[in-house]
């Protein structure tokens, strides 16, 4: 009924009513159409009515229970999921009420601590359609509300609100708008929503519910909420689309069930642009067939291919990064030395290296997947927030660079060398495998700035996304090896070893040294100057020890390893905490950057300002590029500096919970990340990772009403 509210009040009438409100507000003491709010740190609750008073002869009333939840707090749907508790309201103190129709807007799915929940965050208004006992007579609404609100703790709320509506006329526009907005989210009946052929099968041993339905308009990113009564909990559905999106198939696992008769199955389906419908499926004896054997679960195949291609290209490009290039060139040099030893040896060696790359990449994917499954927030580039990781990377790069420029050779004890030489090809192959894996290890630090998008997509997606992205990343990285393995003859086309190789080695060493310097700079930001200085000094000492002549290789290696351990502990102790420094205001390029504060965004928007949020970090090269090429240049710099536009910067160089949660809210796990908010788009426009002036200007225009201002500055 209430969902037709908009139709009942055509826009033409609204203007007349608006006039009536002003008139009635001025002329009589008709009560406001909302109760006094009840406020706790978790939630602010209020009773609303569309009507300011009960008009003569009026037999119905449109009311709502509004809950404004504070950041991080949730409350629950009528079926809360595995745990949780739906709001309960006792209306017994009300007067002149014949019946009530309390409606539940479509819920969201939350997965917290591995537990599935359905409910609401931010804001929800439960629309209530009230039928009066005595039409036209005053009404008293009294609600005793019992509510469970949870963040990482659960706080029960129990409060009474009341609202008196005397005889009178008038519409409260604001209440009406809020109630209508959520009435639109109450699921429609299947037929009204264009849903047909809804069938479901509950398998006899209570393992799963399989649902199938058709929709006139194609589904985009559907989610399915099945309800089988309060004592049955259902897991995360596997949803598949078929027939160009018109067919939805879902299998919902049953986690636990009652023994005995089931409550009738009810299925609520939601989709993009606020679509929601509830249907009572027809029971079928055989489970409906899935449209295809493998799930896409809302992720576009085309997007996956595009991302896979990006990952492959990214992997290929990584070979040219200073971190990885030395490995490839050493590998090629070895192959050249083999020279006439024949194609087979070369082919085997390079295949082993490619296998090494893939082994490491898959291993990493498996670890990341597992970490995500146990609920650890994984992100790409996050390792740069860790001083010990930075310190170790500086050390490895430093030692490697010194080795390349010829400070020392890592020599084996002669005994071992002889043994290896006699052992035939197996250790050789293992060495090749190790070289491949090592190339992949070295690629991790370099990949963060360049592969953020693909990897962040994978980490935010399903297991299959992670598998696809990392596989293609690995294939890209391994492709030079695979090419050589396919055409070993190519090696002979390379110039013969000679003096130039020494020069190349030195050049590569300098590149590595440069990378190490960059990391030192990052480390100053993350760990502070003292820890950084200690790391650099220790790295120098370790390189010095390794370069000592006349001391046995074993002694040098052992000393160096011991010093490395000392160095890592020193870094841990000396680094000046891991606290965030996201709250420092800064100024650059004529833009006064405000520190990031999530609550401030909403406040600024409500004042009609446009807010540009930039999440950045010292270690994020793409962020630096965005800043230098787009943000600090006109026309963007001028717009960001103009009145009415607020530039906000979140510095993620160090770990910061608030920033991580903010990114997670957008389903992002990596940076760069830029959003534009404004009165036009309070929910924000997310900009692409690689900014362009056009994209930023366009978003700023759409967000604000201050188009002219930002154009002309």
């Amino acid at each position, binding site marked *: 009924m209430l969902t037709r509210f908009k139709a009942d009040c055509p826009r033409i009438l609204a203007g007349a009513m608006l006039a009536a409100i002003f008139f009635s507000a001025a002329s009589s003491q008709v009560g406001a159409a909302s109760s006094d709010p009840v406020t706790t740190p978790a939630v602010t609750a209020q009773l609303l009515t569309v009507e300011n008073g009960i008009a003569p002869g009026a037999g119905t009333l449109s009311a709502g229970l509004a809950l404004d939840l504070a950041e991080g707090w949730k409350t629950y749907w009528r079926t809360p999921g*595995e745990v*949780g508790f739906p709001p309960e309201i006792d209306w017994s103190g009300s007067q002149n009420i014949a019946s009530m129709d309390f409606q539940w807007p479509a819920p969201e799915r939350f997965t917290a601590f591995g537990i599935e929940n359905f409910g609401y965050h931010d804001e929800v208004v439960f629309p209530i359609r009230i039928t009066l006992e005595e039409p036209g007579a005053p009404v008293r609404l009294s609600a005793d509300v019992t509510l469970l609100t949870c963040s990482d703790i659960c706080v*029960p709320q129990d409060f009474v609100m009341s609202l008196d509506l005397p005889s009178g006329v008038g519409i409260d526009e604001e209440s009406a708008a809020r109630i209508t907005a959520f009435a639109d989210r109450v699921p429609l009946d299947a037929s009204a929503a264009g849903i047909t052929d809804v069938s479901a099968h509950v398998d006899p041993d209570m393992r799963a519910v399989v649902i199938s339905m058709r929709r006139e308009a194609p589904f985009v990113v559907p989610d399915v909420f099945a309800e089988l009564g309060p004592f049955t909990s259902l897991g995360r559905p596997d949803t598949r689309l078929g027939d160009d999106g018109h067919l939805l198939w879902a299998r919902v696992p049953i986690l636990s069930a009652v023994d005995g008769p089931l409550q009738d199955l009810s299925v609520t389906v939601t989709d993009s642009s606020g679509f929601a419908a509830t249907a009572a499926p027809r029971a079928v004896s055989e489970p409906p067939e899935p449209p295809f054997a493998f799930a896409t679960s809302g992720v576009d195949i085309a997007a996956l291919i595009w991302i896979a291609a990006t990952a492959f290209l990214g992997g290929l490009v990584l070979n040219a990064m200073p971190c990885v290039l030395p490995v490839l060139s050493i590998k090629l040099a070895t192959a050249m030395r083999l020279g006439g030893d024949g194609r087979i040896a070369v082919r085997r060696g390079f295949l082993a290296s490619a296998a090494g790359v893939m082994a490491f990449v898959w291993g990493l994917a498996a*670890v990341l997947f597992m*970490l995500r499954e146990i609920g650890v927030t994984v992100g790409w580039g996050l390792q740069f927030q860790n001083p010990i990781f930075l310190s*170790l990377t500086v*050390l490895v790069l430093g030692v490697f660079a010194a080795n390349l420029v010829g400070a020392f050779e890592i020599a084996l004890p002669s005994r071992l060398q002889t043994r290896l030489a006699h052992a035939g090809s197996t250790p050789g192959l293992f060495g090749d495998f*190790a070289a491949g894996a*090592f190339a992949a290890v070295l690629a991790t630090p370099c990949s963060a700035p360049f592969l953020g998008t693909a990897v962040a997509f994978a980490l935010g997606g399903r297991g299959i996304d992670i598998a696809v992205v990392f596989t293609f990343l690995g294939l890209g990285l391994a492709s030079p090896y695979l090419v050589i393995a396919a055409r070993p003859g190519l090696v002979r086309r390379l110039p013969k070893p000679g003096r130039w190789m020494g020069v190349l080695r030195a050049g590569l060493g300098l590149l590595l040294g440069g990378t190490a310097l960059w990391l030192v700079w990052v480390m100053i930001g993350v760990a502070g100057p003292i820890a950084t200085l200690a790391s650099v000094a220790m790295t120098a000492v370790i390189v010095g020890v390794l370069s000592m002549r006349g001391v046995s290789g074993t002694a040098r290696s052992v000393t160096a390893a011991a010093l490395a351990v000392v160095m890592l502990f020193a870094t841990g102790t000396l680094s000046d905490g891991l606290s965030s420094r996201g709250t420092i205001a800064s100024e650059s390029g004529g833009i006064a950057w405000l520190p990031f504060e999530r609550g401030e965004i909403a406040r600024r928007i409500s004042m009609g300002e446009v807010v540009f949020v930039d999440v950045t970090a010292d270690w994020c090269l793409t962020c630096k590029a965005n800043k230098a090429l787009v943000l600090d240049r006109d026309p963007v710099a001028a717009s960001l500096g103009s009145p009415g536009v607020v530039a906000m910067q979140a510095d993620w160089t160090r770990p910061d919970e608030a920033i991580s949660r903010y990114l997670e809210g957008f389903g992002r796990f990596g940076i760069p990340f830029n959003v534009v908010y404004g009165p036009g788009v309070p929910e924000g426009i997310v900009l692409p990772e690689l900014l362009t002036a056009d994209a930023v200007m366009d978003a700023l225009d759409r967000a604000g009403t201050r188009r002219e201002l930002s154009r002309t500055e």
Partner: protein
Amino acid sequence: MADRRTLLLMLVAGGAVVGGFRVLPSLVEGLPDFEPLDDPPGFRRVAGGSVSSGFNPFVGLSVGGSEETPARVTPDSLRADLCSHLFGTAARSEGVVPIASFADYYCPYCRVQTKRLSDLASDLGSEVAIEWHELPLLGETSILAARAALAAKRQDAYVAFHESLLTSPFRANAEYLSLLSERIGVDHTRLIADMESESVSRELEISAALSRLFAFVGTPAMVVGRTVIQGEISDRTLRRIISLEREEGWSSVC
């Protein structure tokens, strides 16, 4: 050959890099800031986090009687022997850090805390002693689940009981309780008898009174020695607080 050996050495170092960046950050994580509680004296709480002040102190909505039958246990009556009520009798020796855990059936994060504390207890052995409290937040089911949990606790199956609730909603009927007893390996008749017993009722009232005394705003909550923790906390930080309590000595609050 030297090249290969170089690569191998560097591979080991690289592996350490990758392994390290997941494991090591927690090693350098410091202790959280504490702030002293006004009441009860001697206790302190972990500052900051999602549990800001401003909540009304948690008053168990439906435990320990209602308006008609007020709770028999008042918070003030616990002060004289606070530690026994809070930590039970297990933890009266120095060197053992007592932990009081407060949980409810309806609260998602409580299940995580219960599991984590029981893992911690099996890991640290006799270094910690955990006392399980139930704070039923909402309604009949919550109270019955609390009673069943406390009855299971009397047969050393508190954690098993909570784990059995991880995916299966609690149902207050005879078949379910009998099935549950079988699953967690407790005596069914005794479980039912204990659920209705005076000692379980009294324990619920004491827990509710403790929650008012400490002004908990919701569940879960825990008291580690003299440190009150509400909200999410990392395992590492929790272990650090336990060590700190052991070093500083917690018995001053008793």
